[in-house]
């Protein structure tokens, strides 16, 4: 039998006019990724001042952070208040290798991945045995430990940090021009968003969500919850660390002041504001959190007041986030295969 009699097509959500529904159809389709990339690609054509390029590049790096934290918080349900620690580990690893050992920035990436994986294991090892509130507090502590360590070691340059980090270059071609650098970051961040989304839609990503929904039930179905949580933590650490490499390349200088608790809180805010667990949501959330203060520059002294007020308004009006994760599975993944026979077998 290949009938799908019991599988109804997804009902369009109530409310919204015909145009709204049409827009929703496009936004919910698999084209949303390419559309987003296209918008990112034409942005410099519309505005390409060095200032705008700088803001947009920062926003993209922030998107990468938010997508990484979304794996940990949005998918796996592990509240991490010290996420900036992994951002710092990546930035410092790459910065130290590039300035002290004169490695090209690209060559530091494998080392950054190794170090952030280790950092994920070291931080996650003891903390992931804890649940909810306790985990949040311990990750907060670890975040501060990393920052204070960077502030006090000589190899990390102490409070001044590391400066003179070279920009990205490929085969001798310098990519430091602000527009070129923007496009390089766009490609890398797009790949990171795609990669995170693919992990989310795999067996591993499902296991993350099972843990978020009910850790005991997940364990009963054979999900080794400790290992799977560790995988989420490591994935988050790698995404954060690679964002750190881009951060160092963009600013050419890093210091402990860039990796404070406020940074962790802002990334978390992007995730919550955009819609926990929703990839397009956290991308929008990250853009919102980074671009809005710039858009509000006209208000000068009242800028952050207006920013705070807008955040409160958004969360009151849309507590589920700007673009919440869908709870309804699209028909294309719910389809039975053409050879479906309906016969049950126990291996």
């Amino acid at each position: 039998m290949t009938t799908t009699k019991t599988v109804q097509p997804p009902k369009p959500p109530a409310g919204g006019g015909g145009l709204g529904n049409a827009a929703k159809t496009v936004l919910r389709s698999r084209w949303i990724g390419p559309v987003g990339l296209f918008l990112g690609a034409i942005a410099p054509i519309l505005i390409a001042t060095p200032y705008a390029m700088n803001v947009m590049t920062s926003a993209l790096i922030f998107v990468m952070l938010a997508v990484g934290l979304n794996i940990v918080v949005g998918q796996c349900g592990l509240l991490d208040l010290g996420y900036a620690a992994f951002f710092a580990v990546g930035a410092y690893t790459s910065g130290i290798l590039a300035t002290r050992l004169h490695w090209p920035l690209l060559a530091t990436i494998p080392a950054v991945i190794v170090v952030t994986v280790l950092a994920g294991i070291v931080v996650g090892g003891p903390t992931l045995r804890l649940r909810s509130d306790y985990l949040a507090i311990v990750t907060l502590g670890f975040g501060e430990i990393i920052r204070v360590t960077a502030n006090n070691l000589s190899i990390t340059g102490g409070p001044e940090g590391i400066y003179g980090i070279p920009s990205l270059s490929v085969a001798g071609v310098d990519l430091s021009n602000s527009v070129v650098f923007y496009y390089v970051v766009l490609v890398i961040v797009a790949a990171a968003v795609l990669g995170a989304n693919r992990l989310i839609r795999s067996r591993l990503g499902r296991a993350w969500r099972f843990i978020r929904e009910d850790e005991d039930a997940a364990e009963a179905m054979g999900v080794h919850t400790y290992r799977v949580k560790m995988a989420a933590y490591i994935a988050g650490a790698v995404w954060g660390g690679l964002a750190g490499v881009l951060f160092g390349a963009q600013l050419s200088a890093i210091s402990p002041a860039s990796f404070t608790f406020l940074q962790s809180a802002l990334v978390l805010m992007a995730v919550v504001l955009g819609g926990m667990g929703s990839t397009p949501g956290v991308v929008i959330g990250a853009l919102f959190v980074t671009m809005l203060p710039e858009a509000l520059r006209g208000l000068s002294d009242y800028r952050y007041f207006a920013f705070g007020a807008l955040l409160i308004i958004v969360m009151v009006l849309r507590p589920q986030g700007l673009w919440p994760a869908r709870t309804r599975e699209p028909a294309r993944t719910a389809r039975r295969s053409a050879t479906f026979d309906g016969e049950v077998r126990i291996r």
Partner: protein
Amino acid sequence: MSALLDVADLHLAFGGVKAVDGLSFQVHEAEIVSVIGPNGAGKTSAFNCITGFYRATSGAITIAGTDVTRLRPSAVAARGVSRTFQNVRLFGDLPVLDNVRAGTHLWLRQNVFDALLHTPRYRRTEQVATDEAHRWLDFVGLRADRTGPARALPYGEQRRVEIARALARHPKLLLLDEPAAGLNHNEKLELLELIRRIRDLGIAIVLIEHDMGLVMEVSQRVVVLNFGREIADGSPEAVRRDPAVIEAYLGSDDEPAAETGDHEPATATGDGERPTETRDGERVAETGDGEPSGEIDREAGADA
């Protein structure tokens, strides 16, 4: 021939409270065994020991010859054990299909690189998981929408999804913790038939259940617990005539007769810790009166 599940002299204590106190029983392939007893008798505690959620104070649990006493729940599951929970525990915000795909986690071979690169193996395994979910949802007879979140389903349907999820694991042994609780008459009849169909697949079933009609109808063997101790183990007919069982449910002769059939059977059985539902009183009367089996309909009706 060794048993599929062998529980030997199991003890579990929480401080001074002995939740399970020397329980031993065996389950063989494709056998349906019920574990009954007054509330607080230690049934769910024993389940939690077997599935690794509680660590036994002493004793041994063996599954198909392997000692699983000290294993974590996921490792016990990896040895072919699936369970449902007393209070349905689905992944509420996830689509129904995803809930059942959870059962495939242990045997679906897909790694991170398959996922990142969308290899042919990724596409194939994802389709296998989807087909498998549909297959078991068909098997349990889920009529409701499968793409929506599980928490949107009515209670009876959620119970079906939970069983489908456990079956998608392809277990050798399935532990059902009060699957009939909260089901109406018709749903109970369907459950009865479903349990038999599961057994016919070659899966052994251990059932904790308060619905005596269902227990007597479906079980090949009944294990009776009281105060964490096993007081009887035998065929449904033998167990219902067992004086120790009758005493556990009705209380001994020296207690006031008024307590046996009324709203407080827990007091009569000396349980005293958790209140027992009033229904138990009715069942107790029927179990003890020596009537022949075939009372499923009336039993289920009384509970509905």
